[in-house]
């Protein structure tokens, strides 16, 4: 414990009242130095104080005390919480609250108290200090609220703007639009995705999004192998992609500006459905992230690749939750 409580904090983390309070001696700014002694007998407390005289007190009820001090009768009680505390005395009842730097008595402001840097103040001066502190706190809180509100509005506006931009630049085709187109292509070549090996369906999806999604038909084999130098089976994926790529090119034709994205998206949808039904939920989610990574391996995503990933998420039945979203 520091000298005169200096450096000691109260329950609110503020400097404690600066005073010395020993077993028999108390010294403070207003009370000066006083010797005290206290005994309790038969439920009656007797307190002697060199500056205040003798007080005889007892507990009348919970939080209620009656006393005689130097021939004066004393009645006091304190009830309730910090928000609204009722104070009982001979002259009546008052209400006070803990606000600002101390406590404000709403009915008798002269009985308010405040503590600043360990110095205890009472009376009207304390009420004014409390109200000033309350006003300052309110201003800071209001500014914080306003800041958060503005940040929220800005974030919402940017989100709306980005969505509007994506909508302008993106490919506006739904699963309902592309599914029949893909079905026709696969039926023409007698392809049943639900009977194709899942490893080939996956290799075909990687080829579709990473190669055809960029308007290309040549796989950068070296890039795939460079990304997985310690994976002995990387070459197997390359081979599966190349073979699946030849099949896809035969069904869809070589990529060109005239080629409708609905054909690519439709075939992608059916291949993804053929895979989705045969793997578990965790694998479906990994599929989406792996294909997204494959898209980005050769540069920023194209508009077609964006549309492909949108189709994949829906076809694979994956629910994506953004960080912080519930």
């Amino acid at each position, binding site marked *: 414990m520091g000298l005169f409580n200096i450096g000691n904090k109260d329950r609110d983390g503020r400097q404690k009242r600066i005073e010395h309070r020993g077993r028999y001696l108390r010294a403070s700014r207003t009370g000066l130095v006083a010797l005290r002694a206290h005994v309790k007998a038969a439920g009656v407390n007797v307190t002697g104080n060199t500056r205040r005289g003798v007080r005889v007190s007892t507990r009348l009820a919970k939080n209620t005390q009656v006393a005689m001090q130097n021939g004066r009768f004393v009645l006091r009680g304190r009830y309730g919480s910090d928000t609204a505390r009722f104070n009982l005395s001979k002259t009546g009842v008052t209400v006070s609250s803990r606000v600002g730097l101390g406590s404000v008595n709403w009915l008798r402001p002269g009985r308010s108290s405040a503590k600043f840097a360990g110095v205890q103040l009472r009376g009207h001066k304390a009420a004014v200090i409390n109200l000033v502190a309350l006003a300052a706190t309110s201003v800071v809180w209001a500014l914080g609220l306003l800041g958060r509100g503005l940040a929220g509005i800005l974030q919402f506006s940017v989100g709306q703007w980005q969505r509007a931009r994506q909508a302008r630049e993106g490919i506006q085709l739904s699963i309902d639009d592309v599914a029949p187109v893909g079905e026709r292509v696969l039926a023409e070549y007698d392809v049943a995705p639900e009977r194709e090996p899942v490893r080939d369906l996956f290799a075909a999806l990687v080829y579709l999004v990473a190669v055809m999604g960029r308007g290309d038909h040549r796989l950068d084999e070296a890039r795939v192998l460079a990304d997985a130098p310690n994976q002995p089976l990387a070459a197997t994926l390359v081979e599966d992609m190349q073979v699946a790529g030849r099949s896809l090119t035969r069904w869809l034709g070589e990529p060109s500006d005239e080629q409708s994205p609905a054909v690519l998206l439709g075939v992608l949808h059916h291949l993804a459905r053929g895979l989705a039904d045969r793997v578990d939920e965790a694998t479906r989610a990994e599929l989406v992230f792996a294909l997204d*990574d494959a898209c980005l391996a050769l540069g920023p995503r194209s508009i077609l690749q964006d549309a492909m990933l949108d189709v994949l998420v829906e076809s694979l039945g994956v629910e994506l939750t953004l960080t912080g979203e519930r």
Partner: protein
Amino acid sequence: MSDETPGSFLPSVVLHEHLMRTPDPAADADALHPGRFDPPREWTPDLLPKTDYEAALPADVGLMEFNDFHDIPDDSLDRAIRRVVAVEGPVHFDVLADRLLEATGVGRLGARIRARIESRLETLTGPGPAGAGALERQCAFIGLPTQLLQPRYRDWRAAPEKTRQLDHVSDSELMLAMLRAVLDDGVRDRERAMNDGLHAIGFIRLTEKARGRLQRPVEQLKARGWLN
């Protein structure tokens, strides 16, 4: 998903391997990969989960009715050999002979019986009448062509005690055991592949003799780039 993330094909490679290791019983079409289900033409690793070694039972071999090995007609002996190979191939000659003797209640592999089995194997593995050449022989091991090029990943702890010898495991199966260790450990280290590969199929100690036995499979894996 973010445009800022530098992409990579690594997650696709890892996921593709996971899918190859997962049994896919519904798959029977090859439109995406023509020839997917054709028999392999070169050594191909089996990536499906490990299974217990299964031995051919005497009752399944179909020779119980014969009291003397030399009374067995050629076609019955051929059928019995095919049954053992179907269950245990690639199977070592000694293991094959054991199964045939056990099925007929004969205790010892004598010179005449050995010669008879060798003779039938020569017919079964050579260019003969239709169907007769369906088996293949590589040194002491007999199997279907698919079994020799794409052996199953088997746990030899489940094999009968007399069968459970490293000399009875074919080179192609030893190659597979070491490659699976490489895939599981993610390390292409030769020593670790030998140790972990043997352990995985039920052989605990990498002795000098075992090292010698693994020499040829290791060289073949190195030649294919699977091992350092």
